């Protein structure tokens, strides 16, 4: 006569490898990559130079998929082509990068970690006629994406 709930959370549930890593390009030609010489850089290095950032890319491991935010022109490019027709061409002011990874960890009783999904949120926000606008891609670990907040 017992009632138990048998919920396994993830013991030592380390972060799984990232499917995409970032690469930041600055107006002076310098580049900061997430991984350089075996060391992982913090995104803070990019935040520290946000006003000098001109392009920001997410690249998968075999370089077959690359999403790039062009912060000078306000475009999002896929594999360096402007294939993603996100918006009408218009002059944009004060273009800023949007980037974060959303982790969703599911846990059940039998499985230490039932699932651990990472969605990459990549996009830009800008101002037109004193109004804020934004477009965000939600990119899964396979590189499939949807447009939406």
């Amino acid at each position, binding site marked *: *006569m*017992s*009632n*138990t*709930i*048998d*919920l*396994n*959370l*993830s*013991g*030592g*549930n*380390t*972060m799984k*490898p*990232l499917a995409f890593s970032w690469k930041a390009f600055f107006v002076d030609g310098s580049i900061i990559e997430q991984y350089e010489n075996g060391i*992982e*850089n*913090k*995104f*803070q290095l990019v*935040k520290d130079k946000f006003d000098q950032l001109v392009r920001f890319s997410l690249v998968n491991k075999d370089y077959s998929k690359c999403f790039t935010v062009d912060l000078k022109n306000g475009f999002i490019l896929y594999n360096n082509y402007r294939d993603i027709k996100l918006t009408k061409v218009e002059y944009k002011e004060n273009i800023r990068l949007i*980037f*974060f*990874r*959303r*982790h*969703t*960890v*599911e*846990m*059940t*009783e*039998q499985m*230490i970690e*039932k699932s651990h999904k990472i969605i990459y*949120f990549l996009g830009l926000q800008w101002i037109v006629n004193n109004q804020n606008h934004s477009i965000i891609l939600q990119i899964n670990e396979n590189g499939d994406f949807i447009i939406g907040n």
Partner: protein
Amino acid sequence: MAATHQFSESNGAGETVTDGISNANFGNNDSPNLNTTTYPITRGNASFEKYHRSKFSGTFTEISNIKFWKSAGAYVTGESCKAAFDVAYAQPSQTPNADSDVPVAEPGTHNVHAADGSDTIVAPGYTKYWRLQLQTTDSTPAGAVNTKTFTLQYDEV
């Protein structure tokens, strides 16, 4: 590799911290990774409270928007799972508490905060605690209850 995440449980009067717990079984004993066969909850009673929190380490700039909810697993008759968020640690009790039901859908806003109470974690460390307790009544049928799925979600850069 970005941030490394572990679940942590605290137990006892003096707070014994166990990082990287391997399970979060509810039972009639205040201990981490307990065996439910050894420590079953007799119907009509509650489990010992579980004080959990997340621990983040590794390379990251900011962790934010942390949410916790029950995403699947139907209750049986008389069964409920209570939860309180951003609580201070206290010795876990088996006395049924008056906490709210654990959210059963993604909360509209984050319900877990950094240890200092802020919205973001900017250096390796813990979140605040969330407290869970499984409660049953005399009407709860005998035997194991349904498997629950809990979801933790957070944003990282």
